């Protein structure tokens, strides 16, 4: 029996064939890009997404004598009942607040000052960036042992003494320990932020400053009305990154103070480390990690929404 092909069906076939040809041509053209993409996606999947999912799953499990069992919310109950849980959050928030005060404002101020220099800018950039190149542990120990020694031998205490001011115990006493860690952290990390601010500042057209000067604006007014609005995107991005990074502070506490004195520098990540590697309780450490993840996630969403609303206004 002869098969009759209607003109409509033939057109559809041709259209399908053309579409397939287009797809194959496209795929052939992009094969290289897809090849690279597969590698990256696999890396992300294996080293970022898989561990995250695994962490969430294991936070509901319990390992006992080689056997893993479902534990419900037991790990979450254990971590929230830990006497250090709330103290760790308080300490973390204290560090974040202080680090924002110093670590956010200071690099911006330094960048503005360096930007004002016509000469020696490159040298100043290197000088400011030098501490970032030091291995973190070496930088922290250097600061702790030579600058902030609680005895009168410490450099900062000698400076205080020279200025007829009372010496500080720095990291050696609970009230001053966290501010000391903030100073160490700001010193060792601000170089990167300064360079980013400098790049943003150098992208501001000079005419804006000239116009402001003609309008009679002084230095502070020029910063407030020209520099800040022009660098707003960078400022808000770094603010968010800084909050996320400071909430995860660990190295300074681990290396400089061991969580002390009087647990004043036990942070959330330090507590998670203790659970995983000192108390041999990975599952509870993972529960704390998930709580941290949720807190930072909620913060990031709120921040992005507020930022969007601010831009729309």
């Amino acid at each position, binding site marked *: 029996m002869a098969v009759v092909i209607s003109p409509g069906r033939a057109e559809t076939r041709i259209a399908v064939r053309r579409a397939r040809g287009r797809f194959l041509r496209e795929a052939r053209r992009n*094969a290289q890009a897809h*090849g690279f993409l597969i590698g990256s996606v696999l890396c992300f999947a294996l080293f970022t997404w898989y561990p995250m999912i695994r962490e969430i799953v294991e936070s509901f499990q319990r390992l006992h004598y080689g056997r893993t069992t479902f534990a419900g919310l037991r790990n979450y109950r254990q971590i929230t009942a830990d006497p250090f849980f709330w103290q760790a959050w308080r300490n973390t928030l204290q560090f974040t607040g202080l680090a924002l005060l110093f670590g956010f404002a200071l690099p911006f101020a330094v960048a503005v000052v360096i930007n004002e220099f016509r000469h020696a800018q490159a040298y100043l950039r290197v000088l400011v960036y030098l501490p970032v190149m030091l291995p973190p542990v070496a930088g922290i120990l250097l600061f702790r042992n030579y600058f902030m020694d609680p005895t009168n031998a410490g450099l900062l205490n000698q400076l205080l003494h020279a200025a007829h001011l009372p010496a500080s*115990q720095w990291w050696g006493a*609970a009230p001053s320990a966290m501010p000391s860690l903030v100073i160490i952290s700001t010193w060792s990390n601000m170089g990167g932020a300064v360079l980013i601010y400098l790049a943003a500042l150098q992208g501001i057209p000079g005419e804006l400053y000239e116009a402001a000067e003609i309008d009679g604006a002084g230095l502070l007014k020029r910063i407030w009305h020209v520099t800040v609005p022009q660098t707003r995107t960078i400022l808000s991005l770094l603010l968010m990154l800084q909050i996320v990074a400071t909430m995860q502070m660990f190295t300074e506490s681990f290396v400089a*103070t061991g969580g002390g*004195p009087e647990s004043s520098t036990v942070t959330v990540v330090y507590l998670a480390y203790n659970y995983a590697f000192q*108390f041999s309780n*990975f599952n509870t450490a993972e529960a704390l990690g998930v709580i941290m993840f949720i807190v930072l996630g909620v913060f990031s969403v709120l921040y992005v929404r507020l930022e969007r609303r601010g831009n729309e206004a």
Partner: protein
Amino acid sequence: MSARHKRKKVAALACAAAVAFGAGACSSSGGGSGGGTGADGVADGKPLDPNATVTISIDCAPASDQPGLQAQYNDDLATFKVKYPHVTVNPLPKTKCEDPATFTAMLKGHTETNAFYAYFTDQNQVLNSGDAADISAYVNPQTVPGIKDLLPTVTKEISNGGKLYALPRLYYTTGLIYNRDLFKRAGLDPDKPPTTWADLAADAAKISALGGGITGYEDYSGGNTGGWHFGDEIDSVGGALTTPDGTKAAFNNAQGRQVLQNLYDMRWRTGGIGATPVTQWADAFPPLASGKVGMIIGAPDVISHLTNSLGATPQQWGLGPMPGLSGPAPATQDGGDLFYVKKSDTPNQIKAAIAWINYEYMTPGQGQFNYARNVGLSGDPGTNKFIAVGLPEPQLWAPNTAMAQADAAALKAANANMPVANYAPYLENPVPGVGEPPIAAQQIYAVLDNAMSAVMTNKNANIPQLLGDAESKVNQILANQ
């Protein structure tokens, strides 16, 4: 499509595949290296057949920064090879035998060597990992002759629930490490270290009075080491950290107050303790080695660390008993380390691991106990080629047993290169060791860090309040286990 374009595409795909396979390789957990190439053997309680072909891996071998100990280890491997020509021991060198974080990650990834090192206090996490073999069927006086002569406390640490899981390498009880030179400079008798806490405080004050940044005594207060030393010190005044079953805190009492008051007085009244807190285990040693600290509570191997790794002079150091209230302490914390054998090992690998551990760590006159050879291989004191011989450790053997006598005879014959007379106060006043808290020891230490750091950094520290607060936190932790 041009040939160049084709080549680029192939390279891209190869690259992606390499990344994917590389990642897969990284993410897979490695088993133990090696494996029997012949029969796997059986758990028949007999020693390893000298004709069996077996390969095992073991960690805690000396690293290249300890050339003296490395030479000793290599010499032992060569001698062992003569006895078991078909056994290959692949050592995994480590500068520090256990880093707690890496160790926990290793258990989590099941990447242990065929026989793997651990501290006594790791038993819970090792058994929890399910990776330790029950070696009860393999160990007997025929395969490990020293097993019956071990100290009862050591036997307790290598067993659990009536099963044998490990073989020991080292056991110690804590004592008082002191700088004899500083004692002399302060007008104290270096042969008579303080044996009571009151004497220790008085001596510490005299040493601190030397000035120049010298401190009489230092103690830990962070990184869980403060609570660990609090445990040592409360045992020394007749108290305990927890009830014997480990379910309740037992330190909020006169003994606990005494420990903290003593430290508070040394820091704020008599000046025996300086202003710089010691917050990590390793932080205590540089000031000790550089002669800035007079005394610290520690195990005998602190002296070998000071001499082997930090270049201190052996003659400078003395070792006294743990101080108590009216004389040497009635008890002090003990500790040590051991080797587990991996559960996935074949019977012959287990036998080979036991044979090697027995040879290297548990036989007087051989391996770590081959004192005469160790002295011969040792470099000069103060260099990393130095092998300390004559320190009162590893202390594995019960007194008056055949092993203890053989060990003492080997040491006597070897002409120790450490000043054995400096350790006489410790050896003549043996203090019985007690184990660490059986449940949540590190969590208890973390809580007590608080009290330790408070009395040494806060002049207004309220000791009863600190202990009450610590007690409720520890009980809360123990109730949640």
